[in-house]
C-alpha cells in the first residue's frame, strides 16, 4: 500500500521521507516556490511554498509528507500572502525587468505573473548593491539576488567549490564570493559550473548569452510557471 495525503482535496501518493513539495511535484501539482529546486537539499528560506498542514502553516519544501495529512495550498488567503512575499522580494532589491537579460526566463518574475502581481505595493528600499563584471564569462548582478542560496548549494554540493556564501545579516544580508578581493574573477568559478545556471533570477548570468533567445519568445512568455516550475528541467506539459 502506498501512503497518501490530501492536497487541496486531491489524493497525493508519497514515499516515506519525501517532503510535501516533492510528493506534490511528482504528482504534477504546483506549489509556488523560489528557493526550492528538486536537485538540492531543501532550504526553506523564501517561504513562498507555505501551506496549511492540518491548520498549521509550514513550508511545503521542508515539511515531510505524512499519512493522512490534510494540506491546503491553493487558497485565496495563502496566495495573497505569497503575493505579499513576492512583493517583499521585489522591493528589497532593484529589479528592472524590462532591461534584464533574464526577463521571460526569470522565476521571480514568473511567480509574480502567476500570483497576479500588478504593483510592488511596498515602498522600495533602493539598496546600493554591487555589480561584479570581473569574471570573463559570468556576471554577478546583486541587485537581482533574492538570497535563495541555490548558487551556494550548487557550488558547494555539486561543483565542490564553495564559490558563494551569504554575508551580513538581516536586511543587510548579501551574496559574497570566495576571494579576498571580493571579486568573482578571483574565485575558481567556471562558466560550466552548475552554480552558473541555477540562479532563479538574473543575479548570476552567463555573459554573451543574454539575448540568444529574444524577449517574447522565452519560457515564461508563453507558459505559466505552474506548467514549468524549473527552467530547463522538464519539457512543458502541453494541452
Amino acid at each position, binding site marked *: 500500500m502506498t501512503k497518501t495525503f490530501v492536497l487541496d482535496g486531491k489524493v497525493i501518493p508519497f514515499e516515506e521521507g519525501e517532503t510535501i513539495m516533492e510528493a506534490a511535484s511528482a504528482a504534477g501539482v504546483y506549489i509556488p516556490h523560489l528557493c526550492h529546486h528538486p536537485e538540492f537539499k*531543501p532550504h*526553506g*528560506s*523564501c*517561504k*513562498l511554498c*507555505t501551506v496549511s498542514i492540518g491548520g498549521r*502553516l509550514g*513550508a511545503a519544501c*521542508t515539511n515531510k509528507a505524512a499519512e493522512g495529512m490534510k494540506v491546503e495550498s491553493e487558497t485565496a488567503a495563502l496566495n495573497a*500572502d505569497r503575493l*505579499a*512575499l513576492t512583493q*517583499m*522580494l521585489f*522591493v*528589497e532589491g532593484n529589479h528592472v525587468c524590462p532591461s534584464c537579460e533574464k526577463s521571460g526566463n526569470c522565476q521571480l518574475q514568473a511567480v509574480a505573473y502567476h500570483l497576479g502581481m500588478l504593483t510592488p505595493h*511596498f*515602498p522600495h*528600499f533602493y539598496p546600493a548593491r554591487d555589480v561584479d563584471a570581473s569574471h570573463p564569462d559570468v556576471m554577478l548582478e546583486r541587485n537581482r539576488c*533574492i*538570497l535563495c542560496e541555490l548558487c551556494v548549494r550548487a557550488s558547494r554540493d555539486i561543483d565542490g567549490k*564553495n*564559490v*558563494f*556564501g*551569504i*554575508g*551580513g*545579516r*538581516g*536586511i*543587510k*544580508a548579501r551574496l*559574497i*564570493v*570566495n*576571494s*579576498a578581493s571580493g571579486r568573482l574573477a578571483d574565485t575558481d568559478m567556471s562558466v560550466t559550473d552548475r552554480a552558473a545556471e541555477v540562479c532563479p533570477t538574473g543575479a548570476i548570468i552567463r555573459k554573451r548569452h543574454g539575448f540568444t533567445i529574444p524577449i517574447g519568445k522565452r519560457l515564461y512568455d508563453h507558459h505559466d510557471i505552474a506548467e514549468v516550475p524549473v527552467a530547463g528541467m522538464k519539457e512543458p506539459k502541453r494541452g
Partner: protein
Amino acid sequence: MPEPDVCDLPGIVARWHHDPTNLVQILREVQESCGTIPSDTLDRLAALLNVPRVRIESTASFYAFFHAESHGAYEILFSDNIIDRMAGKEALKQYFCERLWLEPRKLSEDGLVYVDDTADIGLADQAPAMLVNGYAIPSLDKTRLDLVAELIRAQKPLAEWPPMLFEIPDNIRKPGPLTGEAFVPGAALKATLARGADATLAEMETSNLRGRGGAGFKTATKWASCRKAEGEAHYVVCNADEGEPGTFKDRLLLNSHADLVFEGMTVCARVIGARQGLLYLRGEYRNLHEKLKSVLARRREAGLLGQNILGHTDENGGFDFDIEIHLGAGAYICGEESALIESLEGKPGKPRNRPPFPDRCGYRNQPTVVNNVETFACAAKIAERGGAWFAALGTPQSAGSKLISISGDCQRPGVYEYSFGVTVRQILIDCGAEDAHAVQVSGPSGTCISFREFDRRIAFEDLATAGAFMVFSRERDMFEVARNFTHFFAHESCGFCTPCRVGTSLLRNTMDKLAEGKGSAYDMNEMKNIMHILRGMAHCGLGHTAANPVVQTMEKFPEAYEKRLKRLDFEPAFDLDGALATARLITGRDDEWAHLADD
C-alpha cells in the same frame, strides 16, 4: 593599546583544537586581542583551519561584535533598550561624545575611540549602561562618564580602570528557593547518583518543571526524549544568551548561583548520558567569563566535574562529564535554540529547519538538551529536594518559582523571585510602581499589557514570561516604546527568511515615518498586514513575534498613534520635497519656488 601584531592566530587556533566548529570562539578571541578582524586574517584563518574563506567571512560578518575596521583602543557601546533611553541614555551619549570631540559611528581622529549603540546588554535595572571593549559599566551618569572620558584621554589600559566602574550589584529584591537558600555544591549530584538516572527523571516528571526560557516546554519530556534518542554522543547545552531586552535574571544566577546552574547541567548529563556540556554565554556577559571558569575549575577540584565524578561507579563504569563555555558575539537570534547550536558550531546564527528538534539532532547533529539557565537551576533544586516539593509551589499548570527582572518606572528595580500565579498588581506594589500605566511582560517578543489588565497573573496559563517586566508610567509614550522594539527586531533579524528579513525593516521604516509625522491610517493597516505575514510565514519565533509590540500598543494605546497621523488616508513614504534638497544645494536656491507646496 592592542596592536594588530600581538594577535597570535596560530595560538588561538591551536587553543580551539584547529576545529572549525569553534570558529565563533576563534574569531571572538581574534577580535578581542587584535581589536579587529581584518580581511587578510580571514585568509590566514581559512588556511589554518582548512575551510573556504567564504565560510569564515559568512560567520565573521554575521555577528555585531565582529568588525573589519578598527574601532580604536576603546570601543564604547551604549545599551539602547527603551529603558536606557528613559534613563537619559541619548543625552548622556551626546554629552560623552561632546566631551571627547567625536561623532557616533566614526572613529575619533586620533584613532582612539569609537562610540555606537548596541542592543540591551542585560542591565535594565541599572540603566543606562554601556560596554567598554566588551566589559559592562552600569548606572551611567555625567560623573561616571567624565571619569571614563578622563581615563580614555590618559590612555589608561582597561585593566587599570577603577574596579568600582565595573561593579554590578545583583539587585535581588525578593529572594526565593533559587536565590535565597544556601546550596551546598554536590548536594543535588549526590542525591542523583544515589537515586539513579531513572528515578531522577521520575522526580523531574513529578516536579512539573517547564522551561524558563520562554516557550515553557516540559523539561522532563525533553530530557526523556533526548535520553532515548540514539547518537554517538549526547550533549547538554545551557542557554545563557539572555538577549531579550529587559531580561537580566540569568545574569544574577550566573554571578551568584553558578554552582546551582552547573549542577543542574550535570544532573541532566547523568540522566541523558552526556559526557560534554556547553554553556553559551552572551558576549555582553564577558565580565562573568573568568568567574564562571573559576567556578568550573573549583568544581573539577571538588570532584563534581571531570573524570569519575564523586568517585561514582556502577555497572556502566564511572560518570565523566565536563563543561566548556562559549561566548556569543552580539546576536539576539542566538538565543533561539537551533541558531544557538549553529553558533556553537561556528556558523552564522540562523535557525535550522525543524523537525528534527535538538533533542534528536542538535550539537554536531547529536541528541542535545538545550535548557535555559534558570531551568537548570530549578533542576538542581528538584534533584536535591524532590519533585513533589517543587510541584507544590506555584499553580497546577505552572509549578515552582519564577525570577522576574523588573526595570523602568519603579522605585526598586531588580530581580524578584515569585511563586507562579502572582498578579501583575502585586508585583507593581512590591517594586514601587503605583503609577504604572503599562507593563511589557517577557520583553519585546512578549505581551504589552495596559493598566486595565493588572489583575492578570504570571503563569504559563495567563501571562507566560521569560522574566522581563518593564514598567511604564503615565508619562511614557507607548508609541516610542514600540518604535524602539521595532528597531531592535529589524537589527536582530538573521535575514534567513523573506517575511522577517524584509518585514521587520518595513515595520521599522513605517514606525519612523509615523514618528516624523508623515504617517496615515493606511500605514497602520499596512503594519497589521505585515504582522499577519510574519505570524504565519516567518521561520522562527523572532519573526513570529516581531510585530507584537506595534500591534499590541496600537490596540491598547491607540491615542499614542492617532496623535501622530498626518491625515487619515494615504501619505507616501517618499518625501519628494526632501529629495529635491540636493538639487537646491547644487543650484544654490532655497526660495519658495525651489520647494514643493506643502498642503
